[in-house]
């Protein structure tokens, strides 16, 4: 019973820290997923009076993912629909070339201005349309989400520190007398802390496994998507397994730090 209590008293704070951290990882991945999706949907229109090549464009901006020439007949079709009376065959010869540029990542507003200026320096480019207003709205919202998740991480960090110190106090009360008596009989540090190290490894493993199992269930059942109000998270089972290893390593660092502090804070007399 006492042993179970010992395990639970470490598993609960560790689980809380790792659960919150994994939540941050998932939200961060979901944001990145939507960011890359947005960058695929987002494009810049360039008007040029000569043929452009992607290699030439990448010299100016390596982040360019694709360059696609737009069919000029679409422009003619639009003009026809608006009822303007011109010789369309003649006009076709005078029309400039229209290009759609996609980027590898969703750019910031600042980067977009820089990109526009760079593109305007390319020989033959007459006009660059970045749809700044629409971009600005999406970008600000994305920035808001990123900042919220960073704030969440900060809260987790502060809470974790508090939980860690609480755990140190508990362990100090529970184990300092035993460790002190062992030291009186010449036990080396590893022997005095062996029990706590064993406890740390087992409990960190259990906590990481619990976090993995819970998130695996939440994602596979669609509960997390429903909770976050998104259609897809962009998080796979292999991502969760990879995260579980990181969480185990991090949990181990936290609990071994506790062991270290407790062993240093041994009293001179009991």
């Amino acid at each position, binding site marked *: 019973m006492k042993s179970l209590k010992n395990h639970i008293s470490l598993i609960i704070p560790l689980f809380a820290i790792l659960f919150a951290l994994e939540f941050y990882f998932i939200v961060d991945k979901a944001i990145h997923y939507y960011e890359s999706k947005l960058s695929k949907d987002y494009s810049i229109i360039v008007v040029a009076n000569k043929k452009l090549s992607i290699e030439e464009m990448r010299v100016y901006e390596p982040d360019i993912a694709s360059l696609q020439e737009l069919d000029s007949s679409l422009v003619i079709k639009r003009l026809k629909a608006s009822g303007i009376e011109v010789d369309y065959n003649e006009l076709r010869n005078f029309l400039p070339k229209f290009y759609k540029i996609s980027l590898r990542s969703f750019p910031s507003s600042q980067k977009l201005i820089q990109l526009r200026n760079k593109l305007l320096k390319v020989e033959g480019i007459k006009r660059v349309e970045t749809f700044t207003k629409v971009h600005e709205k999406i970008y600000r919202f994305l920035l808001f989400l990123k900042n919220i998740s960073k704030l969440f991480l900060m809260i987790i960090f502060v809470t974790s520190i508090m939980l860690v110190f609480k755990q140190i106090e508990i362990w100090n009360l529970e184990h300092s007398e035993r460790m002190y008596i062992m*030291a009186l*009989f010449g*036990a080396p540090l590893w022997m005095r802390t062996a029990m706590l190290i064993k406890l740390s490894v087992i409990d960190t493993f259990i906590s990481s496994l619990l976090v993995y199992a819970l998130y695996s269930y939440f994602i596979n059942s669609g509960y997390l998507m429903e909770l976050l109000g998104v259609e897809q998270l962009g998080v796979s089972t292999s991502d969760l397994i990879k995260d579980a290893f990181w969480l185990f390593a991090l949990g181990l660092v936290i609990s071994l730090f506790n062991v270290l502090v407790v062993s240093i804070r041994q009293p001179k007399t009991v």
Partner: protein
Amino acid sequence: MAKNVIIAKDLYLEYKKDTPIIRDSTFSIKSGSFVFITGPSGSGKSTLLKSFYGELSPKKGILQIGGVSLVDIKSSKLAFLRKYLGIIFQDYKLIKEWTVKKNVMLPLLIAGYSKSVCEAQTARLLKHVRLSGKEDYYPLELSGGEQQRVAMARALAHNPVIILADEPTGNLDEYSSRVIWGLLEGANEQLGTTVVVVTHSIPSNLKVPYKHFYIEEGKIYEIS
């Protein structure tokens, strides 16, 4: 001619700065001897014993145990030295979460003995201290006398070179006291273990020859 196992020269011990508990004391204890340290309450008997097992480092002078200096001793060296000591405390200092058996095994485990040796030695010692059958009890399930007998068994488990005992029979019944003194005498006589006992009164029926140090006002005097 027996060698000196404990040597103190101009020993100065203090808890607070410039408030000496023991000062300018010079004495030595021969290997295989039985020594009593007596003195009034608060005279520094337990403090002196603490300095022998490195709990309190001398501020001035020389203090050597088995040739090892205890002045500014490194923790690794102290841990090594303590493996050769058997300490009995007035308040027993048993590990409450451990069974009687595991408590007695502690010095053997530290010394690196195999499990079978630990088991056999523990069983033998518990029989000596009349606690056979109570191996799986926890210290708080035992009486004060029984707890001190467990502490005694623990101190003897690894056949220490020196036994340091602080009021080992202070609050014990006559039966437990007799068992404790008998074991201390036995270790001294049969194994040649040096025994240093801090006490208020020396038992009258002791069979072994002994040395007597008296502490008063911070100074240590050899009485006999």
